């Protein structure tokens, strides 16, 4: 199976690889997937004033599409408010990266990672966690 140019670009030059301080109350961390399934994504956001995401970092264990999906997600997250970030849909990632049907689960995982990072941030700051849709699974 051939990868799209955008997947290859993100794979070869991943954006925002790294680690934020998970103990900071301004940082939300989402860790999704499982090693047994061959995909684990860790996505972190740092939230500044007015709920704006000032930084985003990721590390991913997985195939090229999983790495590209999380790299793209961090790019999209920076500068967005939390409410805007919650509107990112996995199909936006599928479309942007031209993922084939067998790789759609990589984009689902990235969406889950975003929501999970936001929830971690919310809970840390005394807000209720948002109930995550499970309809993708």
């Amino acid at each position, binding site marked *: 199976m051939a*990868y799209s140019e955008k997947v290859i670009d993100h*794979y070869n030059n*991943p954006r925002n*690889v790294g*680690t934020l301080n998970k103990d900071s109350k301004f940082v939300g961390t989402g*860790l*999704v*997937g*499982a*090693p*047994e*399934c*061959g*995909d*684990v*994504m*860790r996505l972190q956001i740092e939230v500044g004033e007015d709920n704006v995401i000032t930084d985003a970092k990721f*590390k*991913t*264990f*997985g*195939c*090229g599409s*999983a*790495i590209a999906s999380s790299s793209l997600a961090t790019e999209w997250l920076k500068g967005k408010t939390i409410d805007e970030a919650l509107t990112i849909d996995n199909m936006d990632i599928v479309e942007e990266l031209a993922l084939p*049907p*067998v*790789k*759609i*689960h990589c984009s*689902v*995982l990235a969406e*889950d990672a975003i929501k999970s990072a936001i929830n971690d941030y919310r809970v840390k700051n005394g807000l209720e966690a948002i109930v995550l849709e499970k309809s993708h*699974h």
Partner: protein
Amino acid sequence: MKQPIYLDNNATTPLDPRVLEAMLPYFTEKFGNAASRNHAFGWVAEEGVDYAREQVAKLIGCTEKEIIFTSGATEADNLGIKGVFEMYKEKGNHIITAVTEHKAILDTCKHLEKNGARVTYLGVKEDGLIDLAELEAAMTPETILVSIMYGNNEIGVIQPVKEISAIAHKHGALFMTDATQAVGKIPVDVNTDGIDLMAFTAHKMYGPKGVGALYVRRKNPRVKVTSQMDGGGHERGMRSGTLNVPGIVGLGKACELCRLEMESEAIRLSGLRDKLESTLSKMEESYVNGNTQHRLPHVANISFKYVEGEGLMMAMSDLAVSSGSACTSASLEPSYVLKSLGLSDDLAHSSIRYGLGRFTTEEEIDQAIAVTEKAVNHLRELSPLWEMFKEGIDLSKIEWAEH
């Protein structure tokens, strides 16, 4: 150096130019049907087939009449197992095989289970070899066939074929082996090994795709299989269909070359393989899969923990290799062969198979080592699991959200 470097010789091998040369006349001037008995065109084609039969027989130590040409190893596996089951069903319905077999064996056995066969799938030890005591214990008076592969396609381990055939024979069962990866690579002799039926194919030994053979013993005991393809009664009635003369000639030539060059080639390839393997297994958290003593000379299967195989292959686009990972939505299951060794799913997902071949050079192996090291290090930088491992976090204690 040609890019990408081909290190997937367990999937298929390139055709040796000497094989192609032998085949070419049989596409054009020697185009006859080997079954045409009444004119020179047929005789010439038949001569080519007869000579190939001798070349094949010589490689595996049998007589020409014991070779049934097929379209490949999958067909030979089907013919051997289904053919024995149908021929000997009066005697019993029990077949013994192993969980690490190729799908051509496993799925054929599953098919027969629907038709009244009882099949025992032996597990393997963590080195990939079957337990002979377990085989002995599984034998029953109803056992008609034991089918255990010679060398494994994913990890290269060589089963103790002589001991297995002795156990099968002691209990009155036939012994069949799928020797697709072994014939032409290591000495295989149907008499010293006690083999009654054996499947193999040309394209794993520098011959063409689309042609293979089933060896069927004719003496001590005389083995018969029920044909699975009906028609003109070719191949002594066991496999009808016009013979693929150029393919058969190619298989014959490929067998001859393997017979003449096997000994030196095995030494050369195991030397290169050992260089690759010993260098890469020095990397932190890398593991060689399968028994390293009883093994084909040209295969190495290594897991690089905390990186995912498919992602790794993408980082190594200069190398053509295989991975035990299958990261698709249809099947998130990694290799069943690696899992049967007791490897955890994450290690199975992290595995790469390197298959060396006749045209692999030392320069290519050096390049493969460098590319692999660079890719593994790059992906570990991206891997949250590697970071957690480095921080001393026990990954097995984390509650992963399965998806």
